[in-house]
């Protein structure tokens, strides 16, 4: 098993190299670079601009710049953000906790809704409960998060004034008040993201359950007199969860992508809003680093999906 993981990680290296190269060249195609602001600043003489560009190697051929970036990256030097005036790795580490907190809570919420609802709906297909759950799920994933997010803000912040609509990392409170405030400000983004995830996940859990529930071995389990609850949990769910777990793991990168929008709406100072502001301000080192982190996450979660698959299904042996 550990050998398998190690081999997969080694295979990941060339693919990450490829991804980083594509990212780098695409970003190089984009108009502007970190110094484009200097070009429009009349206070900086042209020869100073040229000297700075030469010093940072901005006019080197693109492959040289890529190799330069790669070499620095391999040495743990993620670059310097000209906009924030700090190292990129520190900047990302500063922004990451907020993102992980919101996305993590949203995923937990989504699972807590999707699994019980999906399982129960599948045990009583076409019942009233199932139809209501299906309808809500359909509405849930039809509404984009930027719409529900604004709706939530309008209702709970503007009209009712129950929840803050700007997420801050410097809450001026200590102890229990700090915790409560952290929870209060996370409610809306977590609900918006979590419910959206839960909607599609519920339908997936339901259909995975229905696929298994009519199989022969479920009848065998019933013939043993195990009782409905045990048959469902031990025999149906255990098998239905194999594709569900894989899907969730594979969806994680997309979840991070979806969080970009949510972070923007609720002004969460997370990694997603960092990416967007960096793109807008031509802060190439940050854009490069954040997209590369996302690429690593995709590779990592693919690996996690495969390992979970092998762990859940004894028919698959990882060699």
């Amino acid at each position: 098993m550990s050998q398998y993981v190690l081999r997969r990680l080694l295979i990941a290296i060339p693919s990450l190299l490829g991804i980083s190269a594509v990212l780098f060249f695409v970003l190089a195609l984009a108009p502007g670079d970190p110094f484009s602001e200097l070009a429009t600043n009349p206070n900086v003489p042209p020869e100073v601009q040229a000297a700075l560009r030469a010093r940072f190697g901005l006019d080197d051929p693109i492959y040289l710049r890529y190799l330069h970036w790669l070499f620095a990256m391999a040495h743990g030097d993620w670059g310097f953000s000209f906009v924030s005036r700090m190292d990129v790795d520190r900047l990302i580490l500063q922004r990451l906790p907020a993102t992980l907190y919101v996305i993590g809570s949203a995923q937990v919420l989504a699972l807590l809704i999707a699994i019980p609802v999906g399982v129960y709906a599948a045990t009583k297909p076409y019942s009233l409960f199932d139809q209501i759950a299906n309808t809500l799920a359909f509405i849930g994933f039809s509404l984009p998060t930027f719409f529900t997010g604004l709706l939530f803000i309008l209702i709970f912040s503007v009209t009712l004034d129950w929840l803050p609509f700007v997420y801050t990392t410097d809450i001026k409170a200590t102890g229990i008040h700090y915790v409560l405030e952290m929870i209060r400000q996370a409610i809306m983004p977590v609900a918006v993201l979590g419910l959206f995830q839960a909607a599609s996940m519920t339908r997936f859990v339901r259909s995975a359950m229905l696929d298994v529930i009519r199989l022969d071995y479920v009848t065998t389990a019933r013939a043993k007199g195990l009782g409905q609850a045990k048959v469902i949990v031990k025999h149906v769910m255990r098998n239905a969860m194999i594709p569900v777990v894989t899907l969730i793991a594979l969806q994680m990168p997309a979840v991070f992508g979806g969080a970009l929008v949510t972070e923007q709406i609720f002004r969460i100072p997370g990694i997603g809003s960092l990416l967007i502001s960096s793109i807008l301000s031509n802060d190439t080192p940050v854009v490069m680093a954040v997209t590369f982190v996302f690429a690593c996450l995709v590779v990592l979660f693919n690996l996690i999906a495969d390992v979970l698959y092998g762990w859940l299904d004894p028919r698959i042996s990882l060699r």
Partner: protein
Amino acid sequence: MAPLLEIKGLKTHFSTDDGILQAVDGVDITINKGETLCVVGESGCGKTVTAMSILKLIAMPPGRIAAGEIIFEGRDLVPLTSSQLDEIRAKEIGFIFQEPMTSLNPVLTVGEQIAESLRRHENVTRKQALERTIEMLKLVQIPNAEGRVHNYPHQFSGGMRQRVMIAMALACKPKLIIADEPTTALDVTIQAQILDLLQDMKERFGMAVMLITHAMGVVAETAQRVVVMYAGKVVEEAGVDALFADPRHPYTQGLIRSIPRIDLDSEHKTRLEAIGGSVPILINPPVGCRFAPRCKFAMNVCTAKEPLLREIAPGHRMACHLGDPQLGGAA
């Protein structure tokens, strides 16, 4: 002596988009303690649904027991709820299914799947259940039972899986085993082994066996009594010797003539006979005898009036107008 299981006038219907499908339409079957009863008939004639109805293992809905009684040891099972039936499932009546490849849960070890039945019905610890499970695997002649108990179903061949299924069905020593075409999915040499094993187990534990099959060869080898079903109804019932020596219903005769014979010398060899046509779809079944459209002896009365089961010799009953004294037809 009261029979172990008595099915009286069982009707199991399924609602479909096209109407009510009368899969089982008034079946009477009796099984005595310790006997082997074979239920034969073509695919789609209601054998499996009859068996599954006994423990309500059919999908409900769309399935429904529309009428009838299923009396097991003096107690009617039809009005029982699923959780009441759970006390009887595996404990009193064990089931062996047709497809050993798909009837075992792929993500649980075979040991776990046998043991869970023991732990459900008998007051045993995890360790005792494991010991009993190994014992059962040895009984069904699985080599290296101590090691194999921790294997998953995909690590077993089809025949071995069917042995596991038998061990599972027998684990709680039920009084009745219902085996639904236990050998259909296996190759011929394994079939004989599995039937021998089943016979062995039956003698060892003194249980009754209800063996569902469409192979007349299996019937001849194992049964004491035979029930022939056609299109959701019983058409003939007799002791195995009487049935093979003197089959009375044209359908039974057809089934027996469709067995390949190797014992005839070349002069007597004829082309193997088949019954033309197929089982009717049981939504709005034909009036009168359901076999009439395929029967070469069909008379006018056959499509007008349904033949009822009548006793033609002690222990030999059939449902056909042929030779009915009340109709004055020729035997």
